[in-house]
């Protein structure tokens, strides 16, 4: 059986997350010490060589993002690091685990990222419902300041950096990087038009690096052990590990850190197999903005590229498992209701379209006649929304819808 490969989560459950001395004894801030002895460009090179890709869902190469941000607008008086800790994708709780159980790991990663792009100020945008994550992060920041890991002249290197926590307030859309920056500036969570990307014009109009919590948690390990070591884990194009959060009809739902390239079947086996020995029916990969798969995908390797080639997504690493007897169209309805609730209303196709889709999904789940046509209509509408909405929210309903229609058309 596949075994867990704990790189990020190796100290989870071992250290007291409220105690910085504990974290330091377990090797915390060693990556930072090493990074501060390197040139910022060397840190970026090392990250580029590692092949690390953003763990928020899009899988964009992290080193490249840092390079863009570092090289952009050299005259700008300020550049920022923003930590995306607005975890809200249904079925996802990997960032919560890091923030609650080993907050110093991602804080260290944040400081390394700031050093790499020479940012002196950072923000951690945490969703408002994550009280425990907020408290643990507040404590971690205070303790890191006291130890000289944050503030002026960090560890005598001459590098200054400090961070501040910004709270979200119940908007899923603010997990999208440009919308997050609007919210961070104290405005309504409406998406910005891109380009410009945050690397050029981010928070307060300055070059900004926006990284996910799990992405940043990789940085200390990569710097400490080197990119060659990192590349021995995972696959050629998706190196490293991924924290999968598996839930639904499995015996042991939870978070599992595994090398990239694990199969869905291996993950289900690790999670104790199916609950009460029921048969597998479907999984929703990547949450509401993800894709349904059926049993034919159980042995596909879960990497960004392989899943994309097969018409599926890895996304945030959320895996929601359904068993024989569960109604897949109930879950589809739930996802579409979610989008309707979270649509900000700025783009008309998204505002009207998400409501339309919920109405039709309601008919679908009540088993009204003419369902194949109904489903085709829904896919068509979602395609229009995807082509005419500004941000990923309006572009997402097509993902669960199209995959649902591919695998579960006959069932309706």
């Amino acid at each position: 059986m596949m075994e867990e490969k704990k790189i990020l989560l190796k100290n989870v459950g071992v250290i007291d997350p409220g105690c910085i001395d504990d974290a330091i004894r377990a090797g915390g801030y060693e990556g930072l010490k090493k990074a501060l002895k390197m040139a910022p460009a060397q840190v970026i090179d090392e990250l580029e060589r590692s092949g690390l890709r953003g763990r928020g869902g899009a899988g964009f190469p992290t080193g490249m993002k840092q390079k863009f941000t570092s090289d952009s607008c050299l005259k700008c008086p300020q550049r920022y690091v923003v930590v995306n800790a607005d975890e809200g994708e249904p079925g996802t709780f990997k960032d919560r685990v890091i923030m609650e159980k080993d907050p110093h790991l991602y804080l260290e990663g944040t400081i390394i990222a700031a050093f790499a792009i020479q940012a002196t100020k950072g923000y951690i945008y945490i969703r408002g419902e994550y009280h425990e994550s907020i408290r643990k992060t507040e404590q971690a920041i205070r303790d890191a300041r006291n130890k000289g890991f944050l503030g002026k002249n960090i560890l005598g290197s001459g590098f200054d950096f400090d961070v501040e926590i910004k709270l979200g307030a119940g908007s899923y859309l603010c997990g999208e990087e440009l919308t997050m920056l609007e919210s961070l500036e104290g405005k309504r969570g409406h998406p910005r038009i891109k380009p410009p990307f945050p690397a050029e014009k981010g928070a307060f109009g300055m070059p900004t690096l926006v990284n996910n919590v799990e992405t940043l948690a990789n940085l200390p390990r990569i710097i400490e052990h080197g990119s060659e070591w990192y590349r021995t884990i995972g696959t050629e194009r998706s190196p490293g590990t991924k924290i999968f959060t598996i839930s639904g009809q499995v015996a042991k739902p939870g978070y599992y850190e595994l090398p990239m390239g694990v199969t869905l079947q291996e993950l289900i086996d690790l999670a104790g197999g199916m609950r009460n020995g029921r048969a597998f029916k479907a999984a929703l990969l990547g949450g509401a903005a993800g894709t349904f798969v059926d049993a034919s995908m159980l042995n596909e390797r879960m990497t960004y590229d392989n899943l994309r080639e097969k018409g599926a997504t890895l996304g945030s690493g959320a895996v929601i498992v359904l068993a024989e007897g569960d109604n897949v169209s109930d879950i589809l309805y739930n996802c579409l209701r979610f989008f309707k609730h979270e649509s900000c209303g700025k783009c008309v196709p998204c505002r009207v379209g998400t409501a339309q889709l919920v109405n039709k999904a309601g008919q679908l789940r009540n088993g009204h006649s003419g369902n194949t046509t109904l489903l085709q209509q829904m896919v068509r509408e979602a395609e229009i929304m995807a082509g005419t909405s500004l941000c990923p929210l309006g572009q997402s309903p097509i993902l669960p819808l199209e995959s649902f229609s591919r695998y579960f058309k006959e069932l309706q």
Partner: protein
Amino acid sequence: MLESGYFLNIYLYFGRHFSGLLDMAGAQQHCLRGASKHQDQKVLTDKHIHMSTEEIIKQFEPAQHNLLNILHAVQNSHPQNYLTEQALEETARYLKLTKSSVYGVARYYTMFSLKPRGRHLIRLCVSPVCELLKANDILAILQKHLGIGVGETTSDGLFTLEFSECLGQCQEAPSMMINDQVYNGLDEEETGRVLEEIRKKK
């Protein structure tokens, strides 16, 4: 040793909802937690019941980017968990923003309320995972116990029932939050027990 054993017993007695105590038990042994050298001691999620709106707002630098943090802190300080018109006005004045822009932000985010709510805010998770694992049953139980619908407040002003999108507790669904506490693996018995416990504390 004696001390940490004592905390551990409390932990075992009260069960999983007080897991913070276990952290403390560990911390007693080897983690020195001295007072911070820095002044920034405000805890963003605390209930500042003893402070006035003005005192709370003044803890923050008067810049627009602090707006959401301020609204959270002000709302937390109100026993009815909401933002009064006066609070919005004071915030707007302090940040030199128009009243309408502050109102617009407060209206946009679902965690903020412009109407009075109960002292205890129940947020039932209605994510796909919780729905799959019978969150609807928990909703029926909550409604039966409280005698209210979603978005309503009990007549004694104690509870307001709301829905929440995924709370990120999917390993032990179905889940809900009451104020800042998460309750997982809910069934009829557990849901009733939690409500009773809060009623007794008032």
